């Protein structure tokens, strides 16, 4: 491993000072923070956590103080605060820097260590996921229609895993296993890597299928490298920067093996990891420049279709009332929010009804919904209530992690509404056109 020549905020908490000092404590973050909105405590919101960071640097409190650790991990990293911040404080860096410092001092908790260790070895991880898929019946009972519910004993382990919890069934065959690594277009407009992300690979292969179909319709050569691995976001937000760096480097190596012109993502978190986080975490390494180069090639599918290529407009009719949920990382990190709406509105027959707060977080936060289930459930409920007032048939979004959370929330709080990805709608329209 190359040693970092430049000190980044992951190496030395002192480097956070320049970022912390920019916070004026104006409190604008309080108006948008989903957690503060529920808990109403100063330490729930960015401004309070920044004050904690300042106190750590002034030696007023230890970085491994038990309560401080809890408070610093009580953040969805949804970046809503950054959208509202008048001083442009990069709170994502602050929170990751603090978490990274905590992990360096205390080490990872046992469960995280085991899980992240598995992620570090993509082959083991893949085998593990498939083994789990085969054995999921031990933990999760089938509800039919590719849905699963936790068995009774899990509730004792995590209160969220109660009788109302529901997840999509893990596919026995992963998406990347069944799809051809290279699908050539006859007269390609260009070639693009499909970065599937883990959720599509194991939970939502249908999103992957539809993405490939949409790209084929648009004459794009699609490369879905088998050697791609987790984007690193899940470990990074837990402060395990070392693992995140390793995963990032391996992904960059994989990208470089192909001579694709673009990278396409269908997940806001994966996309923002590749586009924004890699250049930051790889700062000072010999991967920095390469990360920056690839960062410029990363597109969410919706902006890729509308901004990069000559796009075949969807003509098939889809009779559906749809509302759109903005994934935090897709909107607040990748700044993609117009394009998916444009795409949805192009489809004949679809009526797009906006909810009151489409960009309010769904409460997933990766694993936040399990680690902080009390607050997460309240966030989820207000999202579901907002969705319900639209009376839409389906809620559409650009991120599989949100899809899971919305699916669970709608099931729990009783909304009669399907959850779909933007590419599902697009593929549906293309297919409808074929049939007519």
């Amino acid at each position, binding site marked *: 491993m190359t040693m970092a020549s430049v000190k980044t905020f992951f190496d030395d908490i002192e480097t956070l000072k*320049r970022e912390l*000092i*920019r916070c*004026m*404590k*104006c*409190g*604008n973050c*309080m*108006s948008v923070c989903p957690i503060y909105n529920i808990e*109403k*405590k*100063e*330490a729930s919101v960015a*401004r*309070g*956590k920044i*004050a*904690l960071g300042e*106190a750590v640097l002034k030696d*007023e*409190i230890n970085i491994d*103080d038990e*309560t*401080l650790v*809890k*408070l610093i991990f009580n953040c969805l990293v949804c970046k809503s605060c950054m959208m509202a911040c*008048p*001083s*442009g404080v990069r709170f994502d860096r602050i929170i990751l820097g603090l978490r990274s410092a905590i992990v360096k001092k205390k080490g990872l908790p046992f469960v995280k260590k085991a899980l992240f260790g598995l992620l570090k070895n993509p082959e083991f991880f893949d085998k593990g996921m498939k083994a789990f898929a085969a054995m999921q019946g031990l933990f999760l009972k089938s509800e039919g229609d590719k849905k699963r519910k936790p068995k009774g004993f899990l509730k004792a382990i995590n209160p969220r895993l109660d009788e109302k919890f529901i997840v999509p069934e893990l596919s026995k065959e992963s998406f990347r296993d069944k799809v051809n690594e290279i699908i050539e277009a006859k007269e390609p407009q260009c070639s693009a890597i499909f970065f599937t992300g883990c959720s599509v690979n194991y939970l939502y292969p249908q999103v992957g299928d539809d993405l490939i179909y949409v790209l084929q319709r648009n004459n794009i050569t699609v490369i879905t490298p088998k050697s791609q691995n987790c984007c690193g976001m899940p470990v990074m937000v837990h402060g395990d920067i070392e693992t995140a760096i390793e995963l990032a480097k391996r992904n960059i190596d994989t990208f470089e093996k192909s001579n694709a012109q673009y990278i396409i993502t269908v997940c806001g978190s994966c996309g923002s990891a590749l586009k924004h986080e890699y250049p930051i975490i790889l700062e000072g390494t010999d991967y920095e420049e390469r990360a920056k180069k690839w960062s410029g090639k990363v597109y969410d599918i919706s902006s890729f279709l509308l901004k990069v290529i000559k796009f075949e407009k969807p003509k098939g009719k889809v009779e559906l009332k749809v509302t759109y949920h903005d994934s935090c990382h897709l909107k607040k990190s990748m700044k993609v929010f117009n394009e998916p709406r444009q795409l949805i509105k192009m489809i004949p027959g679809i009526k797009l009804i906006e909810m009151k707060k489409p960009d309010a977080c769904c409460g997933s936060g990766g694993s936040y919904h399990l680690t902080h289930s009390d607050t997460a459930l309240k966030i989820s409920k207000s999202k579901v209530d907002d969705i319900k007032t639209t009376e839409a048939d389906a809620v559409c979004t650009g991120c599989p992690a949100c899809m899971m959370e919305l699916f669970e929330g709608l099931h729990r709080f009783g909304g009669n509404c399907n959850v779909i990805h933007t590419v599902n709608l697009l593929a549906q329209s293309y297919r409808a056109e074929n049939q007519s």
Partner: protein
Amino acid sequence: MIDKTFIEKCRNIFGRDNVLTDKAELIAYSYDATPGIPRETPGVVVFPENTKQIQELIFLARQTKTPIYPRGAGTSLSGGPVPLSKGVVISFQKMNKVIEIDPDNLTATVQPGVIIADLNVAVSKHGLLYPPDPGSMATATVGGSVAENSGGLRGLKYGVTKHYIMGMEVVMPTGEVFRFGGKTVKNVTAYDFTHLFVGSEGTLGIITEIICKLIPAPKYRKAMIAFFNKLEEAGKTVTDIVRNHVIPATLEIMDKVTIQTVENYAKVGLPTDVEALLLIEVDGMGQDSVLWEAEKCVEIIKQNNGSYKIAETDSERDSLWAARRAALPALAQVKPSTVLEDATVPRTKLVEMLIAIQNIAKKYNLMIGTFGHAGDGNLHPTILVDPTDKDEMERLHKAVDEIFEIALSLGGTLSGEHGIGVAKIKYLKNEIGRSGVDTMRRIKQALDPDNILNPGKLVPMED
């Protein structure tokens, strides 16, 4: 002061979940939005859910001589909620219910923790408006803004918080619950306690319920932006508009430094060679009168050699407002820290004040962008500094002293809307004199004999 017994009693009063005692949690209550004032970590933070709990806390605090610091959202700009002598912070975040909206009496009765923007969402369903709109209204609470007597962008036409409070319930520092005022437009019973408690900065009593006055929301509005090559012409436009009996809802000014910084940051298409711009918005219930007012403004702008753009659609209005909204964010990008003052002068002294600020910036080699509520003479000279640069911080303090001195010499005031708190307490005597300070002390001592309510703020207890 605060020991185990005290905390145990707090838990009995408020419930375990409504009492914070861990150091890490408490550190997050050591500040408000005021730059450059001391921070202090409270001994305990409590979240009341009703008036009775606050009464019990007062009894407890009196017995133990523990200071109490009420806190809304902590967006204040003079240090109001900072627990200078540790003690108890009362956070009103969980007393946040709109108790009643009475559209016929045009009132809303609220708990102090209601967010100002939320109150406006609630009353808008009746076509009504609660006009005070401080910049932080998406976060700030009604209780906090009543305690600080906050202003906002609509002050010229609609006034400030004190004009919209009709009565309240207060827990006195001696523990009695006192209700005064009510829903009647007219009420001359007893002293005018409403005006005593609005702006009392938590030093005289703890506000637990507030009756707000509402008005019908204006149906029509027209916004325009005007550019001037001379400050004097912008200043004359402001006074000419008022002299012609047009009272715009918004009459905002931005100086050259601010305009250039905004354009550099937000690229909203502002000319960067002008000396000042005015953002003007007129509103009202009748389309004709609003159009007449807008035309009058245009006429006056032309007379004063200004160029202008008028918004024909909502999206054009948004783009005009974008410049004003970007003022603080843009300035905040330039240096790590910003010090935003709110010295205020009579409208007719606006230009003199602006020029004086420019001279102070030159004299102390500081970057100062000035924007603000021109119609109110309420300017926000925003000084951009790096807190790690000791020399610059020293120059900053001298510049601030001088800004206040000049504002007072022009017949103005130390604070138009941010309050005195700790930030301006040392200047207080310069404005209200010895007799003023003595009067304030006597009021404070009469109502709060133990000096337990927000000590160290607003009222200088020692010379």
